[in-house]
């Protein structure tokens, strides 16, 4: 594999909430790189910390420890105003619920243009950029003077995408962008996202709990459990050789559109007490090229043996 440009690099990231007895570590020691032009997925259950990672990157939550580098520059902690502004341009977010994330009292053109306001950009240019963003996501220009309640869920999510796109970002964090949508609309939004990625050379961080969608859209996937990333690999490698027991449990739970298989399916249940990490401390190991696993020495040997067997 040729050297690819790293656009975002996270090292030893901790996010903590609360103090003293109420202190809670939502993200523990997360490390990963995201390459330019790829779709990187974080999958986990609710409360696993996947959204917290996304929010730490976009600086909604402060990182408690560790570093996040965007184009090699540190973006955690205090930053000068111009730097923050530049980051808002470069990193944008798409939210989960298009019913809740749009201002009900504002018209569509204002919602989409909001990020451009107050930056000394001439109104003609704002209008032009809003028009272009709306065209890109497949909304008609006459929708600009309407209110969000006049739109269906799929169209609202398009507005949410246009709002991110209008800033000309390089990197978009999509936090469960299709979970709240209807089945028939999901495919439309997924297609739109991949099309925009090709046209604008975007990089996505895709956060979801649904591995079947991840398999379709992501190039690489990190599996997170209770704040710790347990496995990270290219999508095909992860599905072909899941090494961590939690990944296997997640994979076995994916519902398949195949009644025959579903009737005979066996569920794997993940039991965190199966590890004996108090004696044998786990590390973050690269078991094969690009395939990372959190395991201690004993588990690592087992995983390597299993990997050779399947190949």
């Amino acid at each position, binding site marked *: 594999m040729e050297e690819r440009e790293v656009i975002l690099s996270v090292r030893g990231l901790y996010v903590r909430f609360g103090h003293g007895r109420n202190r809670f570590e939502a993200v523990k020691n997360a490390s990963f790189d995201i390459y330019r032009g790829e779709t990187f997925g974080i999958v986990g259950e609710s409360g696993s910390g996947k959204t917290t990672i996304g929010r730490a990157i976009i600086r909604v939550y402060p990182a408690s420890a560790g570093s996040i580098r965007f184009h090699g520059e540190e973006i955690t902690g205090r930053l000068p105003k111009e730097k923050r502004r530049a980051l808002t341009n470069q990193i944008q977010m798409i939210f989960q619920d298009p019913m809740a994330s749009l201002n009900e009292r504002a018209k569509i053109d204002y919602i989409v243009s909001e990020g451009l306001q107050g930056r000394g950009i001439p109104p003609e240019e704002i209008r032009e950029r809003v028009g272009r963003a709306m065209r890109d996501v497949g909304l008609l220009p006459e929708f600009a003077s309407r209110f969000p309640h006049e739109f269906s869920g799929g169209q609202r999510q398009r507005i949410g995408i246009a709002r991110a796109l209008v800033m000309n970002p390089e990197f978009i964090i999509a936090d469960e962008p299709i979970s709240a949508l209807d089945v028939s609309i999901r495919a439309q939004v*997924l*297609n739109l996202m991949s099309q925009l990625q090709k046209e604008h050379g975007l990089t996505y961080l895709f956060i979801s709990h649904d591995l*079947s969608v991840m398999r379709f859209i992501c190039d690489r996937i990190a599996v997170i459990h209770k704040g710790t990333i347990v496995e990270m690999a290219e999508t095909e490698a992860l599905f072909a050789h899941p090494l961590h027991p939690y990944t296997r*449990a997640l994979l076995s739970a994916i*519902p398949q559109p195949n009644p025959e*298989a579903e009737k005979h*399916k066996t*569920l794997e249940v993940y039991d965190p007490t199966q590890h004996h990490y108090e004696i044998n401390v786990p590390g973050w190991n690269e078991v094969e090229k690009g395939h990372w696993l959190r395991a201690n020495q004993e588990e690592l040997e087992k995983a390597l043996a299993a990997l050779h067997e399947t190949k």
Partner: protein
Amino acid sequence: MSKILSVRNLHVCFTLRGRELHALRGVDLDVEDGESLAIVGESGSGKSVLNKNFIGLLDQNGRVTDGEIRYYGMGDKLRHYQGAGMDENGNYIDLAAFKKNEDWLRIRGSEICMIPQDPMTSLNPLKSIGWQISEALMLHRGMKGKMAYEETIRILEDVRIDDPRRRFRQYPHELSGGMRQRVVIAIAIACNPRILICDEPTTALDVTIQAQVLHLLRELKEKYRLTIIFITHDLGVVANIADRVAVMYAGDIIEIGLVEEIFYDPRHPYTWALLSSLPQLGHRGEELYAIQGTPPNLFQQVTGDAFAPRNPQALVIDSLQAPPYFEISPTHRAKTWLLDERAPSLTPPEALRKVRDLGKATKGGAEDGRA
């Protein structure tokens, strides 16, 4: 098997801001005793409205304008039954004829029960879960004191909640989402109903928990001889739990059949489209099949096949006349003109072959395993 519920030509209208919304347009459906039937469709297709009719929870502005809902599950209790909707020959009760809330009290809970979608909002936060389950036992089965307590403990064990005596005194906020859904299921089971309606019971849950809850529902179905009606838009869940599948579109059932028939041999273009748009069947880097457009506006009269405007391969007759049911097998029928003998033969989309091949592979594999 015998019928337990039979819907005949059901029409439901809602009055919204002075306009009429025709939410159900002549639904026909038979539910067999002891089966699990899944009803799939987009939001707004009428799947929830249909099921709310079965327990009399239709919104204030909605009403049944035509049709019958025959409930056959009363058995011997029917002899002492006095109330609305009784059949002349004493075989069934017509639920659509109910007018008063008192009529529904005999049906709701003790005969037909519903599990709501979100376990976070459907439990009382001020009462212990034990109290909430015992309440159902006292109201519906006349139990009291010690007896109700012991029965509650037994039901908690049945829904696989461990350490039930401790859990009995806990409150909903102390439990996780999956546990809460189990408590909601326990309350439904405590009423000892014949039919259990599950309205998207797993959408609010994580995948791993979802699979466990589905497994639990299958277990309970055997143990309590329940008939389960499953409302969902997730075809993966359907494949897991259903014996039969009904696909709803724009207030009508457009295709119904055994789960194998719907997945491996679907006939209606809408069913094709629904299956093809599953991300499980897509290839990364390629376009996923997407249904264009939006469902029809039910404020307006629908002429012809309701799916025709979104169907790129629609026939001329689709926009003129609504298709009747065509029978494909005794258990499988669909409302599409494609099944008429004069229709051109269309090949279903590529992705569907993949579903069928998947099915064949697992079937073949299973048989090899036995031999």
